[in-house]
């Protein structure tokens, strides 16, 4: 009953000044709209940029690194056990770059419940032979089907078809930069030379563009078998095993486990691409800061209008108090006014914010670097809407609190006497 009465009075005061109320509500609507549109857009861009890395990068990569032996023979010898050994000029151990027993490792990973998929890879340094010039490059022997499924390989093929890699014997998908340098077209036959001197004729079946210039200028893709043939290695020779996990957050922990278990080097995506996460965090922080600033500005608008309203309604406040409304009742009335402005303005803002995000999501955005993207990316994350709601209520409450406290302290005697 009492709440209804307070609500009743608040509503009447609001309607009596509906123009000012509308202006205040529009202020909130505008700021919530911009807040949501800004964060959705920024979130979408972040996701896109992250996906440039996360989609095509294995969550964990198993490989062998060329490195000095961790334990030197001198340290193993029992006679030197209590001595301090100085060993100068240590060199990396000569060992094979392939992963031992790769078939069994892949089979074990397939059985692992954390793993969404596994793709073998074989990397080899090559020269692309164009006339008298050799262009250095990196040849990846891949399982095209697995790469497409796990790491969206197919999305970055701008001409030809990823599946042709396994269908066409000795097919090659050239990086766009490499192809431009070699003036190669689909169907052309090109020659590559491996580090060991082996030549191989390969048929161009497609072009690949990742959007990262350094990659596109160097890398090309062939089937695993083709790469093994080029290197003169047996069918079990694989230099990398790429793992996609069900949960990317487990990567750092699991990388350590796999590294120990299979006796290989293992690197997780977070370690390999830490700068991306940092960049994303900074962008998110900036957009939140701008969004919150908008809300605070709207809060000042409400503060002003309530202050004005209280000056205008001094008489009404005095009379309410004289007829038995306590300071707390008066305060609640004005806080309710502020909150209604916030809730209504904010509610409309959520809808228009969604609308604006949807419009942004329909604006064409074509760039060579991002072959799969045709409109501006927008992240329709419910979290932004929740934050916006909470903030609109919070700032309007704060904006209402101080004027309403002033209203509650108005001394009716001063007002009534003043006449």
């Amino acid at each position, binding site marked *: *009953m*009492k709440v209804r*009465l307070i609500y*009743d*009075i608040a509503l*009447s*005061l609001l*309607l*009596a000044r509906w123009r000012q109320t509308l202006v205040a509500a529009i202020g909130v609507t505008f700021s919530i709209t911009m807040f949501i549109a800004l964060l959705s857009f920024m979130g979408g861009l972040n996701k896109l940029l992250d996906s440039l890395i996360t989609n095509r990068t294995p969550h964990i990569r198993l490989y062998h690194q060329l490195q000095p032996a961790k334990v030197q023979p001198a340290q193993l010898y029992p006679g030197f056990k209590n001595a301090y050994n100085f060993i100068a000029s240590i060199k990396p151990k000569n060992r094979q770059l392939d992963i031992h027993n790769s078939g069994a490792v892949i089979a074990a990973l397939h059985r692992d419940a954390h793993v969404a998929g596994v793709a073998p890879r074989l990397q080899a340094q090559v020269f692309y032979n164009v006339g008298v010039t050799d262009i250095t490059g990196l040849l990846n022997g891949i399982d095209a089907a697995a790469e497409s499924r796990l790491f969206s390989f197919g999305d970055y093929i701008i001409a030809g078809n990823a599946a042709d890699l396994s269908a066409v014997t000795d097919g090659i998908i050239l990086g766009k930069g490499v192809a431009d340098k070699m003036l190669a077209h689909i169907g052309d036959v090109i020659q590559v030379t491996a580090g060991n001197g082996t030549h191989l004729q390969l048929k161009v079946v497609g072009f690949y563009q990742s959007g990262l210039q350094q990659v596109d200028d160097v890398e090309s893709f062939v089937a695993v078998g083709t790469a093994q043939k080029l290197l003169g290695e047996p069918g079990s020779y694989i230099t990398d095993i790429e793992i996609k996990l069900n949960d990317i957050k487990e990567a750092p922990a699991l990388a350590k486990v796999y590294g120990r278990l299979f006796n290989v080097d293992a690197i997780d995506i977070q370690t390999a691409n830490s700068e991306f996460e940092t960049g994303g965090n900074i962008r998110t922080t900036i957009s939140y800061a701008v969004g919150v600033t908008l809300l605070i500005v709207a809060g000042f608008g409400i503060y002003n209008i309530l202050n004005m309203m209280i000056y205008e309604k001094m*008489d*009404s406040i*005095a*009379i*309410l*108090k*004289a*007829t*038995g*409304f*306590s*300071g*707390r*009742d008066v305060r609640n009335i004005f806080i309710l006014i502020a909150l209604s402005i916030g809730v209504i303005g904010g509610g409309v803002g959520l809808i228009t914010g969604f609308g604006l995000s949807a419009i942004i999501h329909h604006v064409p955005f074509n760039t060579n670097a991002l072959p799969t993207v045709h409109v501006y990316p927008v992240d329709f994350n419910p979290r932004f809407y929740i934050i916006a709601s909470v903030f609109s209520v919070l700032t309007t409450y704060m904006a209402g609190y101080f004027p309403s406290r002033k209203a509650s302290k108005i*001394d*009716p*005697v001063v007002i*009534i*006497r003043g*006449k």
Partner: protein
Amino acid sequence: MEQTAIKAIGINKWFRDQTDFRVLTNVTFSVNKGEFVSVTGKSGCGKSTLLYILSTMDTDYEGDLYLDGASMRDKKEQELAVVRNEKIGFVFQFHYLLNEFTVLKNVMLPGLKLARYTAHEVEHKAYEHLKMLGIKDEALKYPNQLSGGQKQRVAIARALINDPLIIMADEPTGNLDKKNSEVVFDIFSELAHKYHQTLLIVTHDNDFASRTGRIIEMVDGQIVGS
């Protein structure tokens, strides 16, 4: 049964500006239930100030104040608001109606706040009072559509809504012409004689005062005659 509606003992009040100015000096008096009392005096003699203290709106005073036998001395702001709501009806020189609400709603507000009756019953009572005061037809108008005399009658209806212990009025006819003053006085008079409503009216209109049951005369913050 307690017969004293309001009792003031040794009320002193200073206005503390640059220099202290004593407005009220040892004001002691009481009003019995059913009495029709007027407080008169020249402008600036402290009669309005006294009324605001009696009405519990002004708490900055020395002395003791009893309303219906209960001391107002140590009550908190919120408790005083409840007292005003329940026990005191106000009529001011200016009507002080809320322009955002209809006449009916203006009358109902203190009743809704008290919530002793349902909204429906309060509305019924409000209509009864408006009818008694002859302004039933104006119930759904807004205050700014009424004449001064009508507004003052609405204010009286509002003062009556919670069946108050006492109605206090501060120069209720001060802003009205002779004819409307007469109407308002007749209403007060009827309330006092027919309904035995306790009334405490502050006025500088000696003609008005002389027709009330008892006159308290004030000079320079002191009661000189009662």
